[in-house]
């Protein structure tokens, strides 16, 4: 990983049919920039999907905002407006999956927004 790639911001309508687009883009970025193997990319895709689904209820202005950033040794995905704890039984399943699938998950309050931050460590030798 070079670590000098610019961040990628995605903003799509906060509607179910756009979640697939987000997970495909995030998965492709993680694979190409971070060298994650197929299984870890699939884990990240599912975790991102879950976070996006959680964010629907609170998405500002009906838009879903996802930011992908490389930091040294890791690929980080911020999903804006996701709740920081389960608000229903379904949310409980979503959080269980996110916590199990990514290396680190944190709720970040920054610049007046709430983000669920998913972090995947990059494979050694990744580009």
């Amino acid at each position, binding site marked *: 990983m070079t670590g000098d790639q610019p961040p990628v911001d995605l903003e799509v309508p906060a509607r*179910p049919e756009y*979640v697939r687009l987000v997970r495909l883009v995030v998965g492709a970025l993680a694979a190409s920039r971070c060298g994650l193997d197929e299984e870890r990319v699939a884990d990240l895709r599912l975790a991102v999907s879950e976070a996006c*689904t959680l964010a629907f209820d609170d998405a500002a202005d009906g838009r879903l905002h996802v930011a992908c950033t490389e930091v040294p040794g890791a690929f980080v995905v911020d999903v804006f407006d996701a709740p920081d704890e389960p608000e229903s*039984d379904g949310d409980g*399943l*979503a959080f269980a*999956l996110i916590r199990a699938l990514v290396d680190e998950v944190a709720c970040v309050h920054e610049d007046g927004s709430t983000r669920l931050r998913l972090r995947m460590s990059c494979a050694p030798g990744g580009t």
Partner: protein
Amino acid sequence: MDLRLETSDRDGTTVLAAHGEIDVATAPQLRQRIVEVASASSAPLVIDLEGVDFLDSTGLGVLVSGLKRYRTLGSDVLLVATRPRILKVFEITGLTRVFSIHPSVDAAVAAAAATGPRP
């Protein structure tokens, strides 16, 4: 990517084969189909997930509510799944203990015949 659903009858058991991705966008289709099938017959339902490439918590929620619906009818929902990606989702959420998961439609239909009510 669409979700394609096909229903068939196998020896008195309904088999619902899903192909494609089950996520927040497509899970409502699955929910609707399960409700329709349950309304038509209380025969056990086998849901074949071998053609499913992606399953999220929304899809799991639909499967769980389908299972509850069938158990209320005195019947059952059985799953067919062998793909590691799909099994992983059940394992993480502890739902392997809730569902009867089989390696093939034949095995699921045989298990359904042994336990479920006849139509």
